[in-house]
């Protein structure tokens, strides 16, 4: 791996850490309406990364998410790897960086990921808790708006361009 790519992966760790930290702090005041910025960052990256780099990005962003959440590591990693696989499928059939696609895909991905984490939490409590999927709806809605407004910005974060796949 070239040194520029190594630096880029390190920069991704730094950016992911700050995005996660800001998201955690915003969650205290915005509650369920805070957009899932880390997941949107993952989807923005998968629109540009080479196929072989997508799993690595999923693992790096899982590291960042686990620094600010008590969700289990298995569930977080499983969710991000699954989203990465779906993202590759989405970009093979549509322009993933387009406004409509990134909005719809962003909202749907966050809804699926949040729903998965809610399900895991309920399962680990032996379903003594009520499965309330609606708790994920505000996050999914705000994440869709965030993807629309900030998706291109996330792809332009300094230091990440050596990771992008070459375009014809």
């Amino acid at each position, binding site marked *: 791996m070239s040194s520029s790519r190594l630096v880029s992966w390190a920069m991704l*760790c*730094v950016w*992911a*850490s*700050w995005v*996660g*930290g*800001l*998201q*955690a*702090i*915003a*969650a*205290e005041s915005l*509650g*369920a*309406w*805070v957009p*899932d910025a*880390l997941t949107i960052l993952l989807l923005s990256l998968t629109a540009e990364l080479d*196929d*072989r780099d997508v*799993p690595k990005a999923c693992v790096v962003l899982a*590291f*960042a*998410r*686990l*620094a*600010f*959440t*008590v*969700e*289990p*590591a*298995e*569930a977080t*990693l*499983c969710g991000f*790897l*699954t989203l990465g*696989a779906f993202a590759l499928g989405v970009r093979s059939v549509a322009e993933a960086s387009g406004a409509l696609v990134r909005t719809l895909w962003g909202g749907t991905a966050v809804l699926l990921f*949040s729903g998965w*984490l*809610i399900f*895991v*939490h309920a*399962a*680990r*409590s032996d379903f*003594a*808790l009520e499965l*309330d999927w609606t*708790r*994920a709806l*505000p*996050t999914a809605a705000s994440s869709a708006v965030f993807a629309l407004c900030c998706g291109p910005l996330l792809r332009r974060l300094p230091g990440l361009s050596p990771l992008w796949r070459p375009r014809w």
Partner: protein
Amino acid sequence: MTLTRQKTIWFVCVLCLCVLSLRPEPFVERVLGVFFAPTRVLAALASPLSVFDDEVQAAAPQVEALERRCRTVRDRYREIARPPATLLARGAVAIEAEVEGRAERSRDTLWIRLATAEGVRPGVPVVCGEAYVGRVLALDPERPRRARVELLTGADFRVGAAVESGNRRSDMVCGGLAPRASGADRSLRLAVHHPSDRAISEGEVRVAEPPALVLDDEDARLGDGFLLGDLFPLQAREGEEQRLALRPALDFAAGLFHVCVLVPPERAPSRVPPIEDLFEEDAWLAGDLILQGELSAWRSGRKLSLGSGRGARAGGAILRDARFLGRVERAGATLSDVRLLSDPGFSFPALAAIDGEPCVLGRLVSLGFDEARGRVRFRMQRDAPLSESLPAVLGRASVSATLFTGAGERGVPLGLFVGDTTLATRAGTQVIEVELETPGAGEVFVRRPTAEVAP
């Protein structure tokens, strides 16, 4: 469609992680804890963001006052749990012990932590106040002052007993559970075996071990006179013999926090040390909550800067300013996950101080933070009304109470402050609300594993 090797590995990893997410394996969790150890670096990178935190530290006099309240409640509960001197036969000595939890595979076996193990042998009785609880099964060879206790509710447990009615007496054997009633009253009932006089069907049943025929086990007789429960007749089917059962004197399901082990005077220590102070420095490890916030909006948790390498263990209570904030859920290599009281599904054993008197509530389960009311909601279930534990509340529909932690779980000591609430005095399930502050980043204390706390 051909699958590349990378896609196959990807798919298999996702499948394994999916299964492990739903059915966690402790070994895998430990491995992942080590694998994700570098998350500490990422958390540290975001630590400058804690300037946005608005946590206000309580003043030292307030904290000291709260600590005194906690100690008062704890000492009062311990006083209630001590046996009356009139029941201590032949100069028996009562050694205090805090309940640490139930055995993994048997709810009828308790783990207790003794003030001292000197003089304690398998077979000695265990009591709580006037009530008989069970017997010591074994001392833990690996951890000092820790013992297993078999409860009276155990299927194979038997103890000699007697009930008196006027100048008549019925001897019997008690132990194990009787079938639950099919009606509204679903409380535990103890089984009665071989009563010598079935005509006596009510009264207080107390321990009365017969003189041993073969083995002279005088230890068992130290429990003579302690209360087992109230005798009553079970509804018999036509043609069946009248059966009897006991309403237990204690809430065995959720109410055992503090017990005493009886030892004969010839083996008793010359001085019984007290249970360690609730806020003793050696019992707590200092750590930090990293950032105020949780990425999953439906959860309520924090990351703790202490990992298993520095002594954090799953289940350890989190304390700040004498307040119970939550518990360590998972102790990773460098960071630990903390579940706060407002995390849905979080549960803990609870004690209420009502008009200064402690009353066991059982287990509270968090239903999460109610944003509309600004309070954390808990579900509480009681089989009996509060007036059975505290006669002073008889006639009142609701009472103001202060919640504290109960014992019965490793890592959570008895007596940590939770918050103030209003309780309905009726039996059954109720939802209570507690005003709790959301903890920000900053210093907290984590309960050290009890085996490491010096006696």
